């Protein structure tokens, strides 16, 4: 019987461990902190739990729009909000623990260090160590928050994203450094809870990721503005002076030309949240000693079979860095791929059509190429944009913000990318992901009946706009 040691119990690690165990492999999974990894404990799940509380508060403030009266002044009780978050995490964690046990996985709570291609030394509690031998090792140790030397996190008022999920008090004035996915999601959550938020982003748009279409960035910027979230683009925080009274005087400097008027601008806030990126979690793992190669920034490098430079050692998930889409669902599929390869099946990882979902308010869901990316790849591109507010369901729900954008190939009508922003965009994108993975055209979508009245009709309408005369 084959033996696999999985280092890391996050989505990459546990998915690999469960699949291997089901295939009859003897699995040892080592986790240094908490099962579920970043996703369950400090990422996906806690942020969405906070977002749900923020949504509840938002709705409480909007009841009159729907003809509901009689509710007094609603506000967030952060102790209760955080307690609920812990409860949800607890439920999910217990589920993972039970599954480990039922599959007979040897779960070790401790820190793993590679001793060779087939041996790991685990440091358990109380100074006890245990050696685990295996045929293969899968590294799934993930990533952690990046600290800026100019802006060291102090966990009291200069915060990391981990801290932002544990704030007992809402800061009246908050600056968020970095307008990527995490910073943007936090901005809308904290604005909902009552903070006056300013986002400082180094590039010239919010969500400056290649997969995010420029029109999505533009709409999010407008929606942020409407909610009173200030955004300073093309700028960075040069300096944060913690004052004697606990407030922070932040100096904003220019990175590009667009923010001339903010050069050297000083803003007084109560807290600073640093969300400028993440770094690989490989300290003490022993990768250098064993010869597992990394790139210049320390992210582990793998081939298309998830194999590292040491053939018996595989790596999946965040520890591979941004070149591999740092997403929980990608880590999970990479985990399955690694296990298949351990079992000799020779499976290649396919990164086309990875959906990405962003829980800002309004939400964003996208899959495939942005219009810009499609053009850069040499496609003859046609695109359409259908506004959310043109849908009867959106009007009935009174959720007007957003749009459905389809990027397709001229002539064939093959769908190259779908970008949705608005209510439920993160769920609506699933239809688009299936369409892309099946190589669908806009005609396939328009020949599919979409129930009325639903938000899903937006995908239909955007495809309809592109389905003029077929070129064939």
């Amino acid at each position: 019987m084959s033996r696999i040691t999985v280092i890391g119990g996050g989505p990459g690690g546990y998915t690999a461990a469960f699949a291997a165990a089901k295939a009859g492999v003897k699995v040892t999974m080592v986790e240094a902190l908490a099962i579920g990894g970043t996703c369950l404990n400090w990422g996906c799940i806690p942020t969405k739990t906070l977002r749900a509380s923020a949504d509840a508060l938002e709705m409480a403030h909007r009841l009159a729009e729907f003809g509901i009266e009689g509710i007094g002044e609603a506000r967030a009780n952060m102790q209760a909000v955080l307690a609920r978050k812990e409860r949800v995490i607890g439920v999910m964690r217990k589920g993972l623990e039970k599954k480990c046990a039922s599959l007979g996985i040897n779960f070790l709570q401790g820190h793993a260090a590679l001793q060779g291609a087939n041996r790991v030394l685990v440091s358990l509690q109380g100074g006890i160590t245990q050696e685990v031998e295996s045929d293969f090792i899968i590294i799934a140790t993930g990533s952690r928050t990046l600290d800026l030397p100019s802006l060291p996190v102090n966990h009291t008022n200069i915060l990391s994203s981990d801290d932002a999920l544990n704030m007992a008090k809402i800061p009246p004035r908050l600056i968020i450094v970095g307008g990527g996915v995490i910073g943007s999601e936090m901005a809308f959550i904290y604005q909902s809870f009552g903070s006056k938020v300013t986002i400082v982003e180094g590039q010239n748009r919010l969500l400056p990721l290649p997969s995010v279409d420029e029109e999505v960035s533009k709409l999010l910027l407008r929606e942020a503005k409407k909610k009173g979230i200030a955004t300073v683009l093309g700028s960075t925080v040069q300096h944060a002076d913690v004052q004697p009274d606990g407030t922070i005087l932040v100096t904003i400097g220019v990175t590009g030309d667009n923010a001339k008027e903010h050069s050297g601008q000083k803003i007084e806030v109560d807290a600073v949240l640093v969300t400028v990126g993440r770094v690989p979690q490989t300290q003490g793992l022993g990768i250098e000693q064993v010869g597992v190669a990394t790139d210049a920034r320390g992210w582990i490098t793998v081939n298309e079979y998830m194999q590292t430079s040491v053939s018996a050692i595989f790596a999946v998930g965040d520890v591979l860095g941004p070149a591999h889409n740092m997403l929980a669902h990608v880590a999970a599929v990479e985990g399955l791929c690694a296990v298949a390869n351990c079992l000799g099946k020779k499976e290649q990882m396919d990164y086309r059509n990875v959906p990405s979902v962003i829980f800002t308010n309004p939400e964003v869901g996208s899959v495939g190429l942005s219009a810009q990316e499609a053009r850069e790849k040499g496609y003859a591109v046609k695109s359409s944009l259908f506004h959310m507010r043109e849908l009867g369901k959106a009007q009935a729900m009174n959720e007007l913000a957003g749009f459905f954008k389809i990027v397709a190939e001229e002539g064939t009508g093959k769908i190259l990318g779908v970008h949705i922003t608005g209510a439920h965009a993160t769920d609506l994108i699933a239809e688009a992901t299936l369409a892309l993975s099946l190589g669908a055209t806009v005609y396939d979508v328009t020949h599919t009946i979409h129930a009325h009245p639903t938000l899903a009709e937006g995908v239909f309408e955007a495809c309809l706009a592109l389905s003029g005369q077929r070129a064939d």
Partner: protein
Amino acid sequence: MTELNYPEELLYTREHAWLLINQGGTGIVGISDFAQDQLDEVAYVDLPSVGSFFDSGAEFGAIESIKSVNHLYMPVAGEVIAVNDALADTPTLVNTEPYSGGWMLTIRIAEDADRSLLISAREYAAGLK
């Protein structure tokens, strides 16, 4: 159907913006009576910050109503020297006073600005039929 009007002293663009050129090289920008009528009740006007510069025909903002979202395009190149803050609280000024209280930007018109987008009230109105 109410009579829509297009004051003769203003210039217009096919994208439904109007421009009032002042002495001293400044101008005021807004959208036409036709545009506000098409939009129906304006819910939000997204205006740029003072100091921004836009080329002739460039997108400078957006206007939202219950039914639609439309981009706003510069009639002529220039630097934004003032925006109408009253529209933040009362966006419907664009509907009730498109040529006065509903003004959007005051700009300093660029010296070498491309003026080819500007047409007379008569040409603009004729184009709407």
